[in-house]
Structure formats: C-alpha cells, structure tokens
C-alpha cells in the first residue's frame, strides 16, 4: 500500500533541494551569471524609471512591429544560449578522444538535446515569425495584423516556453533524449526525471503560441490587403509567409497531439509509445516527423521570401519569374507533407514505401531549384550592390546548394542506410538550416533593421560578421561531413577512433571562427547604436526598395500608413517612385482622416505569466498550483473577452503632423533624383 502523501509532497510535488545541481559547477555558474545579468538589467530599468515605458510601449503593446521586434530579440538571446551549447559540444568532441572530456555523459546528453530544441523552437521559429510580423502588414499596405491581441498572446507564450527550457538549467534537468525525445528512451521507465517533462511542456505551451501566430498571419495575408493588392501582386515574402503559416496551422497540431500522447504515457500510465502493453514506439517517429518535415519548410520558406526581396532590391530589378516563384512556393507547401518518412528510412519499411518517399524527397528539390535559378536570373544583368544583406543572400545561395545536394544524396534510401544518424547527416541539416534559415534571418535583420529602428546598421562590422560566419560555417561543418564518411555517428560523448580526431579539432577551430562572427554581429549593433545619428534614415527608403514597407517612414508610425496605398502592379512602391519622378509631384496637401487603432492590452503578458506557473507546476507535479495557473489563464481570457473599449482614435491633425515630416523628406528625395 502506498504511503500517504506528506505535506511537502502535496505542497511542492517532486520539487526539493536536490533539484538544484550544486555538484555541477558549469550549469550553476552559467545560471548564476545569467540570473545576475537579468537582475542587473531589471534593477537598472526600475532605478532609471524605464519601467512604465517598457510596460506601456512594449510589454502590453499589440503593435505588430513591436511584437516582431520582441520576437527577434527573444530569438537573438536564445541564439546565444544555443550557440554556447554548440561551443561546449565542439570542445567536448575535440578533447574526448580516448578520454571522458570535460562533460560527463548525462550533462553532454542534456546539452545536445537543449541545443537542438532551443535552436529550432526558440531561435529559428521566433526569428522568422518576428520578421513576418514586422514586415508583412507593411508590405501588404495595411495598418495591423488580423488579431493584434492574439498576436501578443502568441509571443508571450513562446517566451514562456523559452523561459521554462532555460529554467531547467538550474532547477532540475533537461531531457537527455535528443531534440525530438524519441520513446522508449523518453518514457518514464528510461527517463524518470523531469527533463522530458520540461521539454514536453515548454513545447506544448510555445506550440500554442506558434499556432496562434500562424492563424493570425494566414488571416492577415488572406483578408487584410490594401486596395489593389491582388494575390499576384503581393511581394514574394508575403507569399512565403502565407505558405509557411498554412504549414504551421496544418502541422503544429500533429506535434501537440504527439507530445500529448507522450505526456499521457508519462503522467497517467498510458501505453501509446511504450514497449509493453501494445504500445508502438515507431508510431511516435511517424507522427513526430509528419510534423517535423513540414517544420523544416516552415522555417526555410520565409527565408526564401527574404532572399527574394533582398536579391531583387540589390540587383535593382524586378524578381525574375515571379509567377514561377509563387508556384514553386505553393508546390513546396504541399509536397512538404509527402516526404516525412525519409527521416526514418532505416525503420524497417519495405522497398515500396522507401522508394515512394525517396522519390518524393527528390521531387521537392525541383521547386527549390527553380527558386535558385530565379534568383540567379534576377541578378543576371542587374546593377548589383553588395551591401550586407546581399552578401548574406549570395552566401546563402552557394551554401544552400551544397546542403541541397547532400540532401538529395540522403534522399536515396540505400545511401541513407549508410549515412543515417552519422555526422554526415548532422553536417547536412546544419548546412541547410544555418545556410538557409539563419543566413536568411540575418539577411532580413540587416535589410529591415533601418525600417524597424530608423537608422542603418554599420556596414563594415556587418561585412566582417558575414565573412567570419560564412568561413566559420565551412571550417566547422565540412569536417563533420568527412567524419560522417569515416563512420562517426552523431551524439558521441567520447570516441576511440584516431582518424576522427583531427576533423573534430578542425571543427572546433571553425566554431571559434563562427563565434568571432557572432561577436562582430554584436559589435555591429553596438557601433550602429552609438553612431545612430550619422546612420539615420530620414526618407524611410534607405535601400531604394521596391515594396510597400519602404513607402512609409522609418520607423513607421503606429498606424503604418496615413493612407491605404493604391497598388497598381508588382513592386508597388517602385512603380510609385517612377510615377512620381515622371509626373513631377504637385505639392498639394492630402486630406487626412482619423485613424482607429487597437488599444494595448496586458492580456498576452498576464496569460503567459499564468501559463509559466502552470507549466512549472505540471513539470514538478504541484497539482494545486496547476489548478491555480490554469484558472488564472482562463480568467485572463474571460476578462479580455468582456472588454468594452478595444480601440482608440488618432485624430486627423496628429496623423497629418506625423505624415508631413516624412512626405517632405520623400519629396526632396524624388526631386533630387529627378535632377540627376
């Protein structure tokens, strides 16, 4: 008979002092430093009196631009965390030849699991969602997204997930199962600790946030477009946003359901994925990859969109083959749901199944190839300016082609049987995710930073950052391809094969070069903020842009556009500029109107606060706190649903005052261009 639960167990669940890793200096010191940093920032904010500003202008903001910036900030912070994990792994593998290295196995396993989880869910996802949030309404020529408050809820729930993952560093442990927590290893019998629970609950909560963001952006693109913005006049980034968010809406429920089944196994003794009682672990692989493969395209499609914008702008030409680009995007959107088995060719399926999915995996390379050729033809004959965003775009094309080719190679089932779970695979997916998604995120960051903040980024540091990151990437990952060919499997804490050693050392050196790239990126930000007056963008069009986001000031006013732009073709803003130059603008004052905008709301923040409590309590089995957290989140929703005033009015006079300044700058620019 089980003993009656003690008071401590009822109050604190599984939580006690043994959860704090006093015996492990690395996480403790890292956690301490981060905690001290957060405290220092908080104290500085409070003492300097910035708290009201932060609360009113950012935390409760429902402005899509602010939310986009916060997404990108979250992603950047998490990139540093995930990057530290990567550095630790590279050092471990460089020194752990015939020795234990400096990381004990259980710690090393947590690090590679946390690295993958953080990089996909809390770096790549928030970065691309942030850029989409920031730019898509501007490109569509509208004043806001479809559901502004929901947008804020989505962001804060994502932040909750990130917070929980990082909390596991100092309270308890993280999963040791790899970034997808395959059973039976992730089941209670093999992972009795809280690690997998941290993993699953943070993904469940941030998954809700992602789904919400997806619904919001799909609705925005489908329903909120300015006058004349046909589907076939939308900038490519809007198309890829649509495709990517359709995939989010279709695929993320699969992840949620799969993790829910795993959690039922772990919490209530179900047998979905256990070895005994009729469970089937292969069902987990099947389901998680049915989400996991579309996820790859959720990340890379927006990056394709960013490159389309960047290549076209910096080549001074309209995008080559716009319609084929749209078709390729939507083809990828559908085919991405037909290839998921290629992640587990070796599972035991017969030649029929493997061949069909292998062929589908090769077919999906075709629309991607179409895109590459379109970008090349856009550059052909163009007057190319090699500004930092363009460098990232060209670097992407070279790198992504290599990653794509190794991808087609592992799409061949017999080849995959040789390369499955090897370092070759690790090199391949870093090649497409770093070369595709991260380069895309950086290109978008450099390209749209002036739009978001009103000043350009320092070009010299930007170019340094590109070259260090670009070369560091190759020095790190080409050796991993070679090590994979030499038979090295992934996730090794130590090894005894002498041939692998030199490649691991080269990879560690490459990691150092990559880190210099990251430092340059930070330096670029610091230097640019210092010199912001010199780098100020007064016209709102620093790159001679082509789409509507450049038709408003930098940073845009809260209402984005004083008037809904009237779109007559692709490259809407470019056409407007041409028309303005040819017709020599009459300087008549337009008639301004009042503008209604949604009011700020703390709903998102409060909701996420309770979700954090609920998630933490679920992880540690503190049931009364679970009830409290979920009640709080529900109450927040009810209060929001019964609100009376959801909009405020910006009077026409204020709109006019804001718009006149930018209009004047723009007229000067046009008349100067006319003079040349």
């Amino acid at each position, binding site marked *: 008979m089980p003993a009656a639960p003690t008071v401590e167990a009822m109050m604190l669940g599984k939580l006690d002092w043994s959860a704090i890793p006093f015996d492990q200096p690395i996480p403790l010191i890292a956690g301490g430093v981060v905690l001290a940093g957060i405290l220092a920032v908080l104290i500085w904010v409070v003492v300097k009196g910035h708290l009201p500003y932060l609360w009113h202008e950012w935390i409760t903001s429902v402005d899509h631009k602010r939310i986009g910036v916060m997404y990108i900030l979250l992603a950047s912070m998490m990139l540093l965390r995930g990057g530290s994990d990567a550095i630790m792994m590279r050092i471990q593998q460089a020194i752990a030849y015939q020795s234990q290295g400096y990381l004990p196995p259980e710690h090393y396993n947590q690090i590679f699991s946390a690295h993958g989880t953080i990089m996909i869910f809390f770096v790549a996802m928030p970065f691309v969602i942030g850029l989409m949030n920031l730019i898509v309404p501007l490109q569509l020529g509208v004043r806001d997204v*479809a559901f502004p408050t929901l947008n804020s809820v989505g962001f804060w729930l994502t932040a909750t997930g990130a917070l929980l993952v990082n909390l596991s560093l100092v309270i308890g442990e993280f999963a040791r199962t790899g970034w997808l927590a395959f059973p039976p290893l992730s089941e209670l019998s093999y992972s009795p600790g809280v690690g997998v629970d941290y993993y699953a609950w943070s993904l469940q909560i941030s998954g809700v946030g992602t789904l919400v963001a997806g619904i919001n952006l799909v*609705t925005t693109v*489908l*329903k*909120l*477009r300015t*006058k*004349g913005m*046909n589907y076939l006049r939308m900038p490519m980034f809007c198309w890829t946003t649509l495709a990517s968010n*359709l995939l989010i809406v*279709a695929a993320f429920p*699969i992840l949620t359901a799969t993790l829910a089944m795993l959690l039922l196994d772990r919490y209530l003794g179900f047998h979905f994925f256990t070895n005994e009682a009729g469970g*089937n672990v*292969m*069902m987990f692989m*099947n*389901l998680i990859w*049915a989400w996991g493969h579309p996820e790859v395209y959720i990340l890379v499609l927006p990056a394709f969109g960013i490159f389309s914008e960047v290549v076209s702008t910096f080549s001074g030409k309209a995008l080559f083959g716009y319609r084929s680009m749209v078709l390729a995007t939507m083809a990828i959107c*559908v085919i991405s*749901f*037909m290839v*998921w*088995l290629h992640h587990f060719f070796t*599972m*035991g*399926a*017969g*030649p*029929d*199944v493997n061949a069909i999915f292998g062929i589908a995996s090769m077919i999906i390379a075709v629309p991607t190839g179409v895109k590459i050729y379109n970008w090349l033809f856009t550059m052909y004959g163009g007057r190319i300016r090699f500004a930092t965003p363009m460098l990232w775009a060209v670097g992407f094309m070279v790198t992504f082609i290599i990653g794509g080719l190794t991808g087609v190679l592992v799409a061949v089932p017999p080849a995959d049987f040789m390369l499955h779970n090897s370092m070759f695979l690790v090199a391949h997916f870093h090649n497409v995710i770093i070369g595709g998604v991260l380069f895309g995120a950086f290109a978008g960051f450099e390209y749209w930073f002036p739009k978001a903040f009103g000043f350009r980024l320092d070009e010299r540091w930007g170019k340094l950052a590109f070259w260090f990151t670009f070369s560091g990437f190759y020095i790190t990952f080409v050796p991993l391809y070679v090590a994979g060919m030499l038979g090295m499997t992934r996730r090794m804490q130590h090894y005894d094969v002498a041939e692998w050693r030199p490649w691991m050392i080269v990879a560690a050196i490459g990691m150092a070069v990559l880190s210099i790239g990251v430092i340059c990126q930070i330096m670029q930000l610091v230097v640019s903020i210092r010199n912001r007056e010199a780098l100020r963008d007064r016209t709102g069009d620093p790159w001679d842009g082509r789409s509507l986001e450049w038709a408003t000031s930098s940073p845009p006013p809260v209402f984005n556009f004083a008037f809904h732009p*009237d*779109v*007559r073709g692709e490259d809407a803003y470019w056409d407007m500029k041409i028309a303005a130059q040819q017709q020599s603008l009459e300087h008549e004052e337009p008639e301004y109107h009042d503008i209604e905008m949604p009011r700020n709301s703390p709903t998102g923040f409060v909701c996420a606060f309770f979700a954090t409590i609920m998630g933490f309590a679920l992880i540690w089995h503190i049931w009364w706190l679970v009830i409290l957290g979920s009640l709080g989140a529900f109450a927040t929703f009810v209060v929001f649903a019964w609100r009376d005033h959801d909009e405020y009015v910006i009077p026409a006079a204020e709109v006019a005052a804001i718009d006149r300044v930018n209009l004047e700058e723009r007229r000067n620019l046009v008349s100067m261009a006319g003079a040349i």
Partner: protein
Amino acid sequence: MSDQTHMHVEHDIAPGDEEQHSVGERIIGYVVGLGLALLLTATSFFIAGTDLVWQPSIPVALIVLAIAQMGVHLVFFLHITTGPDNTNNVLALAFGLLVVFLVVGGTVWIMSHLNQNMPPMDQFIRMHS
C-alpha cells in the same frame, strides 16, 4: 480612380465587415441545420439496430449518413458555401482535407509496412532456440 483594381477587395471582405444578416434569418439557418443533423443522427441509430433493410447494406448506409452529416455541419454551421467570399474557406477546407488524407493515409501505409525488413518471426525464434 481604382475601379478595376478595387474589384478584388469587394469580393474578399475583411473579418467583421461581412454583410450583416438579420438575427432571425441566422437563427432559422441554425435551426434547420440542427434539425437536419438530428434527423441524420436518429436515422443512423435506427438503421444500425433495425432488421428492416438488407443487413450487408447497413455499413454502407452508415457511411453515407456520416458524409451527409459532415455536409450539413459544413453548410449550416461552418458556412462553407459557393458564394464569392467563400473561395478562401473552400480552399482552406480542401487543403485541410488533403493534409489529413496524406497524414492519415501515409501513416496507415507506413505502419503496415513496419516489419518488411525484419526477418520473419518464426525464423527468428528458430535462430535463437
């Protein structure tokens, strides 16, 4: 000024800007839908237990009734119609159906091929005994 370009906007109304039907009209729609749904449900239960019809036809009849039920829900409750502002909804439904078909169909197919590359079980047992 923008008569041609504006056309598309008229066909694609933003959320909240839909034509307002009167409350009575909408209630009638929902009541008709509820009636049809209840009728179909009752018929299903009746057919499942009756011996008035040829027995092998019962599963087929149930499938037909289930599909009809889905149709009623789509038309009366989810308002999927052929109206000009419904292209998005119809396309979204089609995309959803395609994804469900791919994932469910693919899963069934994959899971039934799970052990193709395993040695047959009797051989395996003989090897180890």
